[in-house]
C-alpha cells in the first residue's frame, strides 16, 4: 500500500509541474481560436510609477471606446525596465505596447523590434518636428511621442532668501551661475550641485559652448576639442576651485536629487519629469528657470513615445491604441504628469504647479533644445563609457584632458567593435 501511495504522490508531483508550465499556452491557444468576437488582451509596460493615475485613465478611456480590447498594465522600475524589454522583446514574450525613449529606439529599430506605425490617422503636425524625427528612422515613425524632456535649472528659494540673494533669471550666464553658487555656499550648503552624467549635466555645458558632441554621422566623437575642454573646466572649477558643488565621490554617497530635496543644495539642473518630485519635497520653495547661457543657449532634448512590439500577435489593435495615444484626449491625460510632446497640451502640465514655480521654463527651453547627442551605433555602451570617464574627472582622479582623451578612446573602441 505504501508503495502505491508513494507512486501516486510522485506522479501527482510531476503532473503539477507539467500542468503548471503548460496551462498558459493552452489558454493562449484558446483565446486565439475564439477569433474576433473574443476579447483581445494587450500588455502595456511603462516605468514611471508617478504616471499610474494618468495611465489608468488613458487605458480606461481607450477600453471604453474599444470593447473587445483589454489592456493589462505593468509598471517595471527604471532600473530593470530596459533589461526586461531586452530579454522579452526578441523572444516574443514581452509587451505589445511599451514606453520607449530616444536612446533605446536607436537600439531597437535596427533590430526590427518596433512595429512600424501607419501615420495616416495620426496628426503629426501637432508635435515638435525634432521629437517625431527622434523616434523615426528613414521617415518611418516607430513610436508615438507623448513626453519631452528638456533641461532647466531648479532652485530652492529658501536658501536664496536666507542669504538675501536674488533669484536666478532667464538671462543668466555661466559667470552669474559661478558667482551666485559661490555666494550661496557655506558650511552646510552647496550653492550648486553638479550632475556629472550626460543628459542633465555635461552635455548641456558642451552644447552651450558650441560643441557638437558627435559629428553628423553619429560615429565620430568630438568631445575633446578646445571648446569641450573649456566647458568641462568651467564645471571642474565650480567643484574643485570654488567648492560650490559636491564632487562625484560625494554624489556617489548621496545623490543629487536627495541633496536637493533635503535642502542642502540651492541650484541644480534636471529634466521636466523631476519637477513633480521636487515640488512634492520642497513645495513653494521650488523655482524653475531657463539654463544659464554659455556662448549660446542650449539644452538636451529627449523624447519618449508609445511603441508597439514588432512581434505582437495583434498588430491591428496595437495600431488602434497608438492612434488613440496621438489624440488630444490622451495627450491631456498624460500632461497631468509629464511635459507632453504635443505643445497644445503643454499648458496643462505647467498648470499642475503654482505660477511662482515657473514650470514654463522647461517649455521655453524647447526653442533652444538639441536632440540628446548619442552615437548612432551602440548608444548605450558609448554613453556609459563617456559617463564613466566623467565620473573620474569629477571625482578628481583624472584631469579634464586625461579624462576626455580616455573617453574618446573608450568610445572609439566601442564604435570600432
Amino acid at each position, binding site marked *: 500500500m505504501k508503495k502505491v501511495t*508513494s507512486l501516486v504522490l510522485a506522479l501527482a*508531483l510531476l503532473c503539477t509541474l507539467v500542468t503548471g508550465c503548460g496551462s498558459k499556452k493552452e489558454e493562449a491557444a484558446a483565446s486565439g481560436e475564439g477569433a474576433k468576437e473574443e476579447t483581445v488582451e494587450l500588455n502595456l509596460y511603462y516605468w514611471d510609477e508617478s504616471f499610474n493615475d494618468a495611465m489608468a485613465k488613458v487605458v480606461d478611456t481607450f477600453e471604453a471606446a474599444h470593447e473587445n480590447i483589454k489592456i493589462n498594465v505593468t509598471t517595471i522600475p527604471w532600473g*530593470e525596465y530596459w533589461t526586461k524589454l531586452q530579454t522579452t522583446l526578441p523572444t516574443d514574450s514581452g509587451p505589445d505596447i511599451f514606453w520607449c525613449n530616444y536612446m533605446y529606439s536607436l537600439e531597437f529599430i535596427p533590430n526590427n523590434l518596433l512595429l512600424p506605425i501607419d501615420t495616416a490617422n495620426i496628426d503629426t503636425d501637432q508635435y515638435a518636428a525634432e521629437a517625431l524625427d527622434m523616434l523615426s528612422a528613414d521617415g518611418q515613425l516607430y513610436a508615438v511621442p507623448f513626453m519631452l524632456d528638456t533641461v532647466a535649472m531648479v532652485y530652492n528659494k529658501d536658501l536664496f532668501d536666507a542669504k538675501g540673494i536674488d533669484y536666478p533669471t532667464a538671462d543668466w550666464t555661466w559667470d552669474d551661475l559661478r558667482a551666485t553658487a559661490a555666494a550661496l555656499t557655506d558650511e552646510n550648503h552647496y550653492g550648486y550641485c553638479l550632475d556629472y552624467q550626460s543628459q542633465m549635466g555635461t552635455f548641456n555645458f558642451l552644447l552651450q559652448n558650441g560643441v557638437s558632441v558627435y559629428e553628423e554621422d553619429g560615429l565620430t566623437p568630438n568631445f575633446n576639442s578646445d571648446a569641450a575642454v573649456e566647458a568641462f573646466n568651467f564645471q571642474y572649477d565650480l567643484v574643485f576651485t570654488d567648492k560650490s558643488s559636491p564632487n562625484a565621490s*560625494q554624489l556617489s554617497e548621496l545623490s543629487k536629487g536627495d541633496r536637493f530635496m533635503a535642502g542642502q543644495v540651492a541650484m541644480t539642473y534636471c529634466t521636466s519629469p523631476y519637477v513633480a518630485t521636487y515640488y512634492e519635497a520642497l513645495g513653494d520653495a521650488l523655482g524653475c528657470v531657463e539654463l544659464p547661457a554659455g556662448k549660446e543657449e542650449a539644452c538636451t532634448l529627449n523624447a519618449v513615445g508609445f511603441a508597439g512590439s514588432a512581434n505582437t500577435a495583434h498588430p491591428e489593435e496595437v495600431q488602434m491604441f497608438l492612434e488613440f495615444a496621438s489624440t488630444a484626449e490622451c495627450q491631456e491625460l498624460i500632461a497631468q504628469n509629464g511635459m507632453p510632446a504635443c505643445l497644445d497640451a503643454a499648458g496643462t502640465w505647467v498648470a499642475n504647479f503654482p505660477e511662482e514655480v515657473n514650470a514654463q521654463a522647461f517649455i521655453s527651453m524647447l526653442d533652444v533644445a538639441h536632440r540628446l547627442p548619442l552615437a548612432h551605433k551602440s548608444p548605450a555602451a558609448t554613453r556609459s563609457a563617456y559617463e564613466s570617464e566623467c*565620473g573620474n574627472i569629477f571625482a578628481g582622479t583624472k584631469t579634464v584632458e586625461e579624462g576626455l582623451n580616455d573617453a574618446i578612446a573608450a568610445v572609439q573602441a566601442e564604435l570600432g567593435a
Partner: protein
Amino acid sequence: MANLTGKQNKRCLQKTWNCARYRLKQLHDSEKVNGYLFIAPLTIGVVVFSILPILFAFAMSFTDWNSLSTPQITAFANYSKLLADPNLKIELRNTFFYALGTVPVTLILAVLIANALNQKIPCRGLFRTIYFLPVVTMQVAVAMVWRWLLNSQFGIVNQILGFFGIEGPMWLGDTRFIMFAVIIVTVWNKLGYNTIILLAGLQGISDSYYEAADIEGASSWKKFTKITLPLLSPSIFFVSITLTMDALKAFDIIYVFTGSGADSSSSPMLKAVRTMVYGIYENGFINMKMGYACAEAVILFAIIMAITAFQFYMQKKWVYYD
C-alpha cells in the same frame, strides 16, 4: 476462441489478470522508478532553469549576440578581447580581494559564535534569533539600509565612531574604504546562516567525547582544538565551500552601494568594487553585449570550478568523517 467453454474463458481471464498484477507489483518493487519519479520535478527544474541556460550561455560566448539581434558566430573573439580588457583585471583583483576578505572572517566568527550559542548562556534562544535575522532579509533591502547607516554625514556608524573620538571616513564615497564597507556588510549578512549550520554540526557531536576528556583532565582549549574542531570539520568544510562560491559571485550589495543601475556604471567608486558578476551584468544588460558577458561568465564558471575542485582535493588532509 469461439469454442472455449465458460470455465476455460474464466481461467484465461484470471491468468491475464494475475500476469498484469505481477507486472505491476514488479514495477512497485523496483525502487528505482519511484526514486526517479520523486526527483523528477526538481531535476526538470534544474535542467530547464539552470543547466540548459548554462549550456546556452556557453554557446553564446562564441557569438556577438547583443540579445536583440540574431547572433553571428565570432569564434574566440570575445575571449581574446576579454583577456585584453583592463576591466577584467580590475574585476579579478576585486573579486579575490573580496573573497579573501569575507570568507575567512565569516568562517572564524561563525565558529566562535556557534560555540558561544551552544553553551548554556542566558537568553540563548533570543541570541540565536538575533544572529539569524539578517538572513531572512533580502540582500538588496539590507544594502539599502546600510547605505544610510554608512552615510558619512547622517549615518549612525560614523556617529558612533565620533563618540569614541574617531573621525569616520566617507565609506561609500572613497575608493579606499568602499570595499571594506562592502566586506563588513557581507560578513554581517552571511554570519547568521553559517552560524546555524555550524551550530547544528556542534549539536551532532556526542557528549561522551567531552566526558572522556573531562576524566582525562583536558583543558577547554584542548577540548576545543582536539575534539570540537575535528568533529566539526565536515560542517566547516561545507560552510567554506558555499561561502567561497557566494563570495566569487558577489553582486547585490555592490550594485546598491554604487548607486544602482545606470547610476552605478558611471560611479567613480565602481573601479574599487566592481566584481566579475558586476562586469557580466554591465556588459550584458547596460552595454548590451550579451555574447561578451557570456564569455566572462564562462571564465568565472571555470574559476569557481577550479577553486571548488581544489577545496575538495584539500579536504582529505583536514576533514574527519566519523
